[in-house]
């Protein structure tokens, strides 16, 4: 199923949150440029690293908010920081069980 999820992620128009990089990307594939581009991406990751407890809190609060509107499978919820071509995306995969009845 992971290939399916990946496919949908790729098709998804925009991630939930994305952090601008502020870095320009070099295009010609010399070892120098490769090093620069790879480093910029790695450092974006390193610099946006959330601590385990922050991630846990974020997850819990997300569940709380979303659960107001839809019933979700809390245990299957996935939340990750992922590197795209030149952005970092907070990618959440939240399986929905059913919508809440309108109150």
């Amino acid at each position: 199923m992971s290939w399916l999820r990946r496919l949908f992620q790729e098709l998804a128009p925009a991630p939930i949150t994305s952090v601008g990089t502020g870095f320009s990307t070099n295009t010609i594939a010399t070892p120098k440029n490769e090093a620069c581009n790879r480093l910029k991406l790695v450092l974006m990751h390193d610099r946006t690293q959330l601590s385990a407890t922050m991630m846990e809190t974020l997850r819990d609060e997300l569940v709380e908010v979303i659960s107001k509107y839809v019933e979700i499978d809390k245990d299957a919820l996935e939340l990750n920081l992922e590197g795209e071509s030149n952005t970092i995306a907070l990618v959440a995969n939240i399986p929905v069980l059913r919508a809440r009845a309108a109150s």
Partner: protein
Amino acid sequence: MVSAKSSSKKEARVIVVTSGKGGVGKTTTTANIGTGLARMGHKVVLIDTDIGLRNLDILMGLENRIVYNIVDVVEERCKLTQALVKDKRLPNLSLLPAAQTRDKSALSVEQMKKLIAQLKTEADFVLVDSPAGIEQGFQNAIAAATEAIVVCTPEMSAVRDADRIIGLLEAKEEITNYKLVLNRVRPSMIKTNDMMDIDDVLEILSIKLLGVIPEDKDIIVSTNKGEPVVNMDESLAGQAYRNIARRVAGEDVPYLNLDAPLTFMEKVMGLFSRSKSA
């Protein structure tokens, strides 16, 4: 060096030399900047905080003169003055060696602060050589520092670790100034786009440059001799370190032209023109 005579009331600048990654040239940089400053007449104390893996003594050629070490001082087995090893040539330069048979936990942040407070009144510069890593040893090394020199090579892993270190230095309020020494630069590889250049590293790390050291076999030779390369008058790396020492002392020194002279003759000519301008 720490004697009863305390002529100046001015406090020493305490500068930590650090990198995150091991093997990028922290100890070499500490030895050479320290020796460079001492050659200019400043009173300098070098502190090796790499407890268990001491090496600064080797680079200074002082390994046979060590009696006491930093742990002996903090555990009060000797006085600070007894542990300081005087340099072979420069009487205004001394080394406080690390303990070799202990580990990083033998020293605490509080002990380091106390120790450096004692040295501060007696020297112009206290250079603290930090161990690799970001754990206890690093915390000890930065404990009393107000300035930092980040050593890095133009390699991905070194730059990544330097970025982490810069983050930690930024988080420490007492450190008001930190700059980069880019070590082991190979101009010929930069020319062929096989290596990141100086501007790449400065942009990625958003840090100011203190100086650039070329990859130079003189460094290996000088280590083998126990004589910092800064003392080798004809060495390019030595010249680069002499310039850095002057910048640390506040002088405005133009950067060396490292554009690799490819032929022997060019190299000789290059050295000739450099020594005239230096």
